[in-house]
């Protein structure tokens, strides 16, 4: 089980993540929701060890990941928020590099990289530099790289960004299959319908603090609203969006 316990992160004197705690169990897809700037990606960077928390710890199977970050990263697959890749490498070269850096033997890397590229419909572009890839193609490369070593923990930060409908549908099936095989998955997305469909648990963060953490079903009952979108709106969005839209039109027409 992956546990985040009382994690806080200050930038200067502002808490961007404030006393956040939650757990992800094997076989579960946990949705992590919040508007832009709410602290989602900071939480993810803390979990992956890219940044240090000011206070709090992350545990996996009861062990503090800081004590063996390398060991934790061996078990981790990560798709970051931004598809920043070495653009002069081809898709195949990138996957080969990641596989080798993860210590996989060359034949295994070559086989898995080629198979994944084929399954993600990228095989025809495998020798083209990533600079020529569309956003959705880059996203698929990131997902393939995160899965290459068959990780136990998957952290996916906006994985569907820029993807076409077919790829997104494939990804949703893939996530279900991985969860069925006991993987721990933290899934960050703004696409609430997908989160509602896929995630057994939803955590909503706003201004660094957790506003809700439960199954969608229980949240619906608790808040007496029909959808995750309604739950989200009630918890994090206090503005009248219709009025804001009218104001925008007023600005451009004026």
């Amino acid at each position, binding site marked *: 089980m992956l546990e985040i316990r009382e994690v806080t992160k200050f930038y200067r004197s502002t808490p961007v993540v404030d006393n956040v705690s939650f757990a992800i169990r094997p076989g579960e897809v946990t949705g992590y929701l919040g508007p832009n700037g709410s602290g989602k990606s900071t939480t993810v960077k803390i979990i992956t060890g890219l940044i240090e928390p000011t206070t709090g710890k992350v545990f996996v199977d009861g062990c503090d990941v800081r004590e063996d970050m390398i060991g934790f990263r061996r078990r981790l697959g990560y798709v970051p928020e931004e598809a920043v890749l*070495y653009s002069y490498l081809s898709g*195949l070269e990138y996957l080969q590099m990641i596989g080798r*850096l993860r210590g996989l033997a060359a034949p295994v890397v070559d086989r898995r990289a080629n198979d994944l590229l084929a399954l993600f419909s990228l095989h025809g572009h495998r020798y083209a530099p990533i600079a020529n890839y569309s956003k959705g193609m880059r996203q698929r490369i990131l997902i393939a790289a995160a899965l290459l070593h068959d990780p136990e923990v998957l952290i996916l930060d906006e994985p569907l960004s820029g993807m076409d409908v077919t790829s997104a549908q494939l990804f949703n099936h893939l996530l279900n299959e991985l969860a069925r095989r006991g993987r721990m998955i933290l899934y960050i997305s703004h696409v609430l319908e997908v989160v509602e469909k896929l995630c057994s648990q939803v955590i909503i963060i706003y201004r660094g603090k957790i506003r809700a953490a439960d199954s969608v079903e229980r949240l619906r009952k608790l808040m007496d609203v029909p959808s995750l979108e309604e739950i989200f709106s009630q918890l994090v969005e206090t503005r009248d969006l219709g009025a804001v839209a009218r104001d925008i039109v007023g600005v451009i027409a004026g």
Partner: protein
Amino acid sequence: MAEGSRRLSVLNELVRHFFRRFFDTESLSPQAEPEASVVQALGLLAAPGAFFVLVIRPLTIAGWDLVTFRVMFVTFSMVVMGFLTLFEWDALFLDRRDYQILTPLPVRPGTLFLAKTAALGIFLGIFLVDLNFFGVLFWPGVDAGRDSMAIMLDHAVAVLAAGLFAALAAAAIQGVLITLLRGAVLRRVSVFLQTVLMAAMVMALFLTFILGLAARQVVTAHHTIAHWLPCYWFAGFYERLRPATHDKDLLALGDWAVWGMAIAAVVFLLTYLPGYRSHGRRMLEAPTPAPRGPGRVRRCVTATVRALVVRTPVEQGVFHFLGQTITRSVKHRLFLATYGGFGAALAVMAFGDSERDGLLRLPLTLSFVLVSGLRAAYGVPSELGANWAFQMTETGAIGPYLTAVRKWMIVCAIVPLFMALAPMQVMYFGWGMALFHTAFGVTLSLLLMEILLIGFHRVPFTCSRYPGRVNLVGLSAVYVFGFTMYSRVMSGFGEWLAETPWLAAAFFLTAAAVLAIVRWHGRSTSGSERLDYADPVDPVVRTLDLTNG
């Protein structure tokens, strides 16, 4: 009237935009402010001319001596302008981002072309004036003539024409390439030419003094090299404007300058506009190329390297990453081309004394430039934001990463260099001595590599650069020694060793012991070390956190 002023305002905005784009190439630091970069570059380029003209001003020169200094100033103007145009080679035309952002806007293609051309002209014009400003201003003291204004004017015309010629010639070459070639062939030829020409410009810059000092001999001896080097054409052009020697051969070279300028201008005009149109169409309409992947030879080489050189997966990953970055990253390619040009200039200078001395010094000079150039390039980040891939996949011990770094330098740089030079060594020194000098050179290169990699706990190109992180004193000492005395001192040492076999054996044994100890030390400490990415853990600007009681 309103429409005219709107168009002018759009044109102004576009000129400003394109001008700024010249300073946001991949080769500049991502943290750099464009305005600060402009000011720094202008100051840096104005300084050499200002310094040199003030040094020679009290001499008040005439005749061939004056021609010598004219050649130096003309060469400097040409080399810098040529280098700048080649540096901005890809920015001479609109790129895909420009087309994608600007073409949906209600702006005429002609306005885009005009704005790009104007921005290019302003960019080159500013640098041309800047780098020659002090030279022109203080030239009346250098030239023994009396009419200061005429002296300034003639000097300005000569150096500005020389710089303009270099810029036009470089731009015309790209115009020709874009007009004649397509797709992958265009990319390959363009990259190759840009790299080679930039190295040639750096080489010429470091040979400026030699070119000046050789002017009299080259011209009066009717050497064909005078017709191959445009700096002598413009020295002839200068002679026509303001005779210093009245030498007929020198005056005749002035014709070459006029014809050269005319041809460069005509080719530029004939290729730039049509090339601009077809380039735009291709940018927007060309399908994304789907390369076929590595050929049989490359696959074979890769398999051999994996089998013999880099056997562990991490070593393989880092080794291939190094090769791919150095051959494909524009920034690193141009950086190494600059070093290559510098090395070529030093190699030419090494032959100044005697052929034998030159042949002894050449491998040492080139290996020093190569190893130090690669070490410097390792510190230049490439797509820094993508280094998370290395951070997330770290395997613990840093040994395999650092071993791959050394192996790459040896297999892909040091060994090929000495292999390329070996036939020349064999022809001149015979098998036995060639083998000794090659072994001596390789050993010195390995020692140099270890010295330069002390404290280097990174995967090259993945670490951000911060001032103060480098041991500047230590590195400066190595570089100053390397670029001034290294090849002379070491070639003398090598010759001494060659005459005393037991000393040679002692040297090789000592070097082997030192390298073994360094490797052993590296392996024994690699388990406790972590790779350095130099990413700030907290924001770069920190407060004292006084409110966070």
